[in-house]
């Protein structure tokens, strides 16, 4: 049984990817592939939900660079949500935080990206960046 799993869904023009467990090299590569597929299919908005991520190691972190780079190459937007404080610090150490938008939860990310929550309700168009 693996310590990592991944699910994703798309909500209109936003892809939400939810990794779970331990993001090491294998997990990060799967994330990279999953996000790559969405980007190649033309989606310009990606949200990665960290609420079920337990650990990230620096090998996985280095592969996140590819995800960020790929997103930028596609002219797309990348948002992270539900990050624990320690995970945020890990990404800060890598200097990645400046290249993504970080939000408290999916609603906030959707508000930023679309002006609407994932269930389609309008919200005030404010970002609540962490």
């Amino acid at each position, binding site marked *: 049984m693996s310590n990592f799993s991944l699910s994703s869904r798309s909500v209109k023009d936003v892809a939400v990817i939810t990794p779970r467990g331990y993001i090491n090299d294998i997990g990060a590569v799967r994330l990279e592939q999953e996000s790559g597929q969405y980007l190649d299919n033309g989606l310009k908005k990606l949200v990665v939900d960290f609420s079920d991520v337990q650990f990230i190691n620096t090998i996985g972190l280095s592969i996140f*660079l590819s995800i960020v780079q790929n997103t930028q190459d596609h002219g797309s937007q990348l948002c992270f949500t539900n990050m624990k404080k320690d995970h945020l610090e890990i990404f800060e150490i890598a200097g990645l935080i400046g290249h993504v938008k970080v939000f408290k939860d999916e609603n906030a990310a959707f508000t930023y990206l679309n002006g609407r929550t994932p269930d389609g309700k309008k919200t005030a168009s404010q970002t609540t960046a962490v």
Partner: protein
Amino acid sequence: MLTSSLSEEAFFGRQDELSSLYKRALRAEQGASRSVVLAGPRGIGKTEILRHLFGRLFWTQERVFPFLFTFNPALLSVAAFSKAYLSAFLCQRLAFEKREQALLYRDGISIDALSGLIEEREVAWAREILFQFLQCSRDPVEALRIALAAPHRSMLSTKIPVAVLIDDFHLVGRLHMDGVPDHRLSHLFEEPLGHGKTPHMITGNMAELQEMLVTSGLERFPVRPLGLEGTSSLAQYVMKRCETEGNVPPLLLRRLDGNPFYLERVLARAGEKNHPVEQDFWNAYLREITDGALSLYWKKVFKSFFPDLGLRRVALETIHKINHASEDLPVQRIVKSFARSDSQAQDIVHNLYLAGFINGEFGAFRKVEDAVLRDLIDCLYQREILEKAAREVERDILESIIARREQAVRFELVLPMAREAELVAAQSLEQIGKNLNLSQETVGQMQIAVIEACINALEHSGGMGDQVYVSIAVDEDQLEVSVESAGREFIMQETGEPFRDQEAVKASGRGWGIKLIKRFVDQVTFEKTARGTKIVLIKKLERPAGIQKEDIVNRE
């Protein structure tokens, strides 16, 4: 002495503090700077920070004039103090005009010589202040007022603000007139302390400063123990200076707790040996607390507060009792224990508190957090009161330190060189944390560090062994995890460059591991062992909340 005894290269772990105070000084230009007290225990580096700040302000900018003054215990009569203060101010101010180093060292300059300098340079405002000061030779209080107001008056005349840096400020309470201390004299500092264009940055014995009304409203600027980087840099510097190298035992580093004075003394003594090993470091520590510089320093403090030998003995017994009590001791218990009157006991504990040997408030007292000081007191007690031989004392002290360590709860894991084996260590930590009621934050951060350490060990064993040994120890105030494996040294270089070029940063990504570890733990050391290499990670556990008399408020 105005300049630091430490060169820039030897001044470790204080750049943040220095930068913050430097900016505070420069804000005096807008009149927006407030006076502040640098707060911290003895030996933590407050004086060095002030001296380095003076150097930086004096040599690298022109917007604010720095004035550094250290109270001299031999010059506490109002008349002598006023003269010394004003002379020092005027000399340093004149030196600042053209950055004349020689003028900075004119301690004890006569009034005539000073007057001559002022006339020669035609500094009208200085002439006027000096004239008024001399007019008040029969009114020492007024003379003091004039001296203390000199920075503000110079600012008004020259439009250049002044950062007034004062060391050993606690001695202000001992200013006297004709041998009679007069606490009201310290109130004359109130007005100078309040000017936004002449902020005062003061330091001294914290216990005494806290009892002074004149400093009670001032912001506190905490000077904390050196962190991981500062400690490590200082240790390397001292070893290099001694032209040797060696691994400082983590338990000893923890005991020295980032105090630069303690670190420098103990490591310098250990460094006298060629390639000191663990026992040599411990021997150096024991030497320092029995008859080395550390011991001499604290004995001097002790004698200054308890000049009478008989009383000193009672004081020593009192500290020992407080240090070994399981709870705070009220004064009444001390009165009973030593058959002293209430007032005698009050005096003794009050002086012990002011000297920094004990902590306490509201009539109850407890041991200080400074483990080195507690060891030193134990040594002194055993030598002076129990009359034990030096060797026996040293052995007992060391055994008690090791025994406390051995009271730690320990868990040992042996991980195979298998994929994701590091998760076993991380999950074990989680369960240990739950069992021992550790904070989730502490455990979470240690888990991140341990994962990296295990990956490092697994990657760099170089095929020389097939196991990684993880040891987890928890005692009353720290969580310690060591990760040991066969093979060459861990990769210790750091990169952590911000993301720019993908390929370059990917290649450097592995260097983040050590950076991450250092971010999430309080202390990390690397050791060569019989098995190979070991990394030791330490996180301090939060102390129980209690009333802290030193109310550390704010720092920029």
